[in-house]
């Protein structure tokens, strides 16, 4: 029964929307949401089923214990943060309508929006303070934002009035609003104890949840930011193959994180459209700067000069991406766009390698099937390095432990990163005490320069200071960022209003803004 009506619905749509409408639909991209034709007028009602990579029993309903995309998407439907990130990873107001600091970026005041929780309660400053203290609870180590919000001094933070909260830091930080936009920073109700009964301020109200399978939620009619158009939202879990089949077979209307191979086949058909957030991820090789042979800056530079970036992008990313310039965060706030693109120069690399005494030697690259394209990239890069007379031996490890192994095994390995702010990337990966310092880049002067830059209150000055640090990294650091993959989402042809923006930003997976044509 259901199948038949769905099939008819799809055929009906294709019949009606032919010509101009279809052309607009097929031309994928950022303008999908702001369509100008009459056919693109938002419609009310309907059910949207979105499929994400699942995590089985690992999936959680507690918004402060998330790390999987599927969890983040589910929590986003029901909960909100004070601040979110825009498409360029700049902070944008959400539950906090605006904020200001004391001039030193140490004491911050956030003005709260007139929002209500699903149980009818009004959002007040106490809710914010409670949420932050719940995140910081040392007895629950898996509350993910604990380290990023560690400089928050909760004892000195307070409610000024119901609609204003004052947050005090132990050290000045001009990036504080973006930290509040990080993973696991949702605002819950004061006294929230039971994560299995979600009550947030988000656009959808909780109906049911089954780990590894589904979340069902319905529209929250009193949502402060224009109630959703769809009536019901299902967020489901499935691996890549099943996601592809589901969105093509009409069992889901939205499939997150699709492969380039799928995109090619999908675009040949008419039922599915690909929304590509251009160059919003990073694929890199990481060299440990404290280990031979990469403790020699000449060798690091030689390897950077040996990468045939375009070929890596064409082969490993199937052409869906751009070449990288050995830096994280292209297109984001603070990215030094004026640095010249690194080009391949085998002769110069050869000379550097000869000087370093590495010609004819063997280096081991540690990889694993932990992320699409890792092993392929390592293998292809080994061929490119061989042209300069250095053998790169590919060693493949266990995909499940790769994140940790990368820190300890091999002198060079694969690394990828999703979207986050550039200062966040620095904090997580490039400071002496960073938990995920994959290149072992540890320079006290770099740390202090970064801390100083972060405290600068003028955005322009701060940007210039970050730029200097990034230039140092590009020239001397261990990150060989060769490619910037597109982030691919597949939607059924009847879904409108999906934005092509990087993951972890406000408009990614914003199901309150989409509608079914």
């Amino acid at each position: 029964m259901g199948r038949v009506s769905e099939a008819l619905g799809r055929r009906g749509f294709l019949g009606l929307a032919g010509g101009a409408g279809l052309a607009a639909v097929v031309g994928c991209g950022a303008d999908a949401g702001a369509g100008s034709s009459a056919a693109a007028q938002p419609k009310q009602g309907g059910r949207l089923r979105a499929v994400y990579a699942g995590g089985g029993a690992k999936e959680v309903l507690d918004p402060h214990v998330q790390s999987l995309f599927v969890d983040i998407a589910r929590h986003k439907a029901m909960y909100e943060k004070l601040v979110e990130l825009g498409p360029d990873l700049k902070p944008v107001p959400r539950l906090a309508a605006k904020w200001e600091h004391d001039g030193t970026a140490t004491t911050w005041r956030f003005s709260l929006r007139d929002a209500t929780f699903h149980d009818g309660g009004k959002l007040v400053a106490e809710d914010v303070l409670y949420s932050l203290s719940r995140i910081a609870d040392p007895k629950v180590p898996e509350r993910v934002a604990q380290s990023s919000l560690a400089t928050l001094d909760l004892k000195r933070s307070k409610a000024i009035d119901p609609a204003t909260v004052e947050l005090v830091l132990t050290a000045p930080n001009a990036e504080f609003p973006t930290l509040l936009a990080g993973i696991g920073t949702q605002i819950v109700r004061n006294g929230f104890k039971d994560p299995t009964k979600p009550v947030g301020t988000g656009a959808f109200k909780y109906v049911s949840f089954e780990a590894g399978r589904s979340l069902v939620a319905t529209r929250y009619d009193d949502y402060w930011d224009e109630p959703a158009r769809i009536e019901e939202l299902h967020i489901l879990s499935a691996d890549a193959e099943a996601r592809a089949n589901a969105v093509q077979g009409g069992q889901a209307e939205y499939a997150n994180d699709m492969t380039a191979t799928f995109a090619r086949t999908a675009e040949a058909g008419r039922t599915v459209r690909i929304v590509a957030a251009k160059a919003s991820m990073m694929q890199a090789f990481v060299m440990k700067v404290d280990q031979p042979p990469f403790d020699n800056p000449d060798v690091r530079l030689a390897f950077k000069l040996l990468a045939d970036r375009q070929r890596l992008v064409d082969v490993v990313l199937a052409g869906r991406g751009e070449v990288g310039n050995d830096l994280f965060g292209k297109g984001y706030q603070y990215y030094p766009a004026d640095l010249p693109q690194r080009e391949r120069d085998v002769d110069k690399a050869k000379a550097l390698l000869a000087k370093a005494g590495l010609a004819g030697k063997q280096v081991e690259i540690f990889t694993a099937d932990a992320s699409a394209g890792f092993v392929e990239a390592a293998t292809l890069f080994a061929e490119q390095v061989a042209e300069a007379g250095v053998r790169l031996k590919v060693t493949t490890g266990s995909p499940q432990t790769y994140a940790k192994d990368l820190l300890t095994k091999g002198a060079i390995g694969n690394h990828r990163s999703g979207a986050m702010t550039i200062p966040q990337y620095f904090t997580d990966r490039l400071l002496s005490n960073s938990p995920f310092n994959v290149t072992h880049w540890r320079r006290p002067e770099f740390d202090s320069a970064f801390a100083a830059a972060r405290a600068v209150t003028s955005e322009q000055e701060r940007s210039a200071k970050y730029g200097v640090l990034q230039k140092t990294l590009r020239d001397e650091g261990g990150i060989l960022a060769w490619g910037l993959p597109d982030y691919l989402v597949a939607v059924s042809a009847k879904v409108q209003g999906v934005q092509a923006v990087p993951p972890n930003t406000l408009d990614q997976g914003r199901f309150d803004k989409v509608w079914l044509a």
Partner: protein
Amino acid sequence: MRLVAMPYAVQRTLLAVVQLAVLSVLVFVLTSLLPGDAAELRFTETLTPEQVAALRVELGLDQPAPERFVHWLRDVLTGDLGTSLISGGPVAGIVRNSIGATLVLTLATLAVVVPLAVALGIVMGTRENGRIDRAISSVTLALSAIPDFVIAVVLVAVFSLRLGWLPATWVGGDLLSSPALLILPVAVLFGRTVCLLSRQVRAGTVAALNADYIIQARRLGVPRRQLLLRHVLPNAAVPGVQELARTGDTLLGGVLVVEAIFAIPGFATALVDGVETRDIPTVQGLTLVLAVAALLINLAADLTCNRLVPRTALLR
């Protein structure tokens, strides 16, 4: 007959309990040998090493492995399968949530496979080496030679994506409102099992038809239909029933592939998830349930054979 069967059943059950004990130790040891533990695997950019260390203490992973095993064993003997290291919920809950889909899938497959395989087996066996026998043999053999995932991918491509007749995955669907979800998975599992089972029934039929007492009965003029139903079929069924028990194991392998391709939240999926996240209590619990199930199926098969043809038990 009861007197013969009971000690045999008891003996078999005791053997199975020993097997179960060995198995649970093996599973524990083998999963302990996997690189990383449940805390470590949660190590991502979002957790610091200090948080991971705290997590390890919280999960009890800082205790030595033998100690953890003894704890687990004590709990199991009191009927408690323990707590998942990943979800923090009871393992029994994971078993309960995942067993339904797998059971439905397996039973639906058997409901299709058994009658068809028996019918095909008898048709083939009564026409040994005839044209029909060879035709059916070739088709079923060919079918069983194609890997499950190939059949699955082709069926999905044709019947779901091209023709749009059947759902391609279980994502977003539930069995109650759309039983059609079962058709493609069962079709895949069917290919894997029907050949093996029908061949055993065929072999049994051929053997029975060529037995001296049947030849004698035929000489005495017993009608063919009566001969087949009363004398040939019970004997022919014995290898079939034994094969059916083995089909359980074969099916499990197929179910794993089928569950992955069709995104069915079943037992195999839960087991793979458990291994991938090093959720040892969950892996242990699921394995234990599977082992008990396999034991019961084989026991039932042996008792059934014994009932069909009592001499088989004496022959052992």
